[in-house]
């Protein structure tokens, strides 16, 4: 009985840990999503500008003037990177989800096992 209890405790600890990991991954995914949105907005804005528009980039405390082509390239490559990161994180999320689903099943099985044992030994449990 105590053995099973301990096993259950361990399993639920692991499950909790997985849930924590899942939360971090989901947060990272959300952050990437908002960055992607922002970069898309900038990209769209750049397409509306004339080629000789004055574009400045904030580097630390100063604004540096940049060519439009350079700025467009920077945003494009950033979007590429973000897209790759999103794919990576999504894979991570589905992995963790699968793992925690398995853990949940294990916990459930253990719980039914414990219940069965309890029903088989009502006298001992009462004593």
């Amino acid at each position: 009985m105590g053995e099973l209890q301990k096993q259950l405790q361990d399993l639920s600890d692991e499950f909790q840990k997985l849930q924590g990991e899942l939360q971090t991954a989901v947060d990272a995914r959300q952050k990437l999503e908002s960055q992607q949105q922002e970069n898309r907005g900038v990209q769209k804005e750049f397409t509306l500008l004339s080629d000789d528009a004055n574009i400045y980039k904030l580097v630390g405390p100063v604004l540096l003037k940049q060519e439009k082509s350079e700025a467009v390239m920077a945003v494009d490559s950033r979007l590429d990177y973000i897209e790759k990161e999103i794919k990576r994180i999504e894979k991570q999320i589905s992995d963790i989800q699968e793992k925690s689903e398995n853990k949940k099943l294990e916990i459930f099985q253990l719980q039914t096992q414990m219940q069965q044992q309890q029903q088989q030994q009502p006298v001992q449990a009462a004593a």
Partner: protein
Amino acid sequence: MSSSAAQPGGQTIDLAALSVQQLSQLKKQLDSELEHLTTSFQSLSRAQAKFKDCLKSISDGLTAKKADSPILVPLTPSLYVPGRLMDVSTVLVDVGTGFYVEKSTADAQDFYKRKIEDLGRNLKELEAIVQGKGKNLSVVEEGELHVLFSFDLQGGPGRAREGGPLELETWDVWEVAMAGVGARTDG
């Protein structure tokens, strides 16, 4: 929990088939979703208000007759130096991710108007989603109540086996259910 998490909007779940635990888990999940969406809604509104401020600043502060007028330039939130407004025809607009673009005031106003419209559209969409979620939540709450009642009417299956203070426990369930009714009608 994650079985219902894997069911985005649009799919239906048969509430009658769920146990009390599953229902309360579903309710908890809906609660947190609703909270998240509400916070998003608030921050979107805040962003929209900020853009409206920018728009107002351009139309109020950058007119031709304001040219050359003395201004105080903030170096920090509490330290100012005197200055003079030299250029009222162009402004630098933060378009996001650290890029600033020089624009004429008309273009800048156009930019902010577009942003405000985009946000307005998003806000409307989000509002519809929030309302849908709220409806889901109240349906689940009702379902939870329903299960509690039927549980009681059946004499609490599974409890008789334990023996002991059966009546008291049944009463507890009644009380919980009644408290739930009170909370619902209050709300």
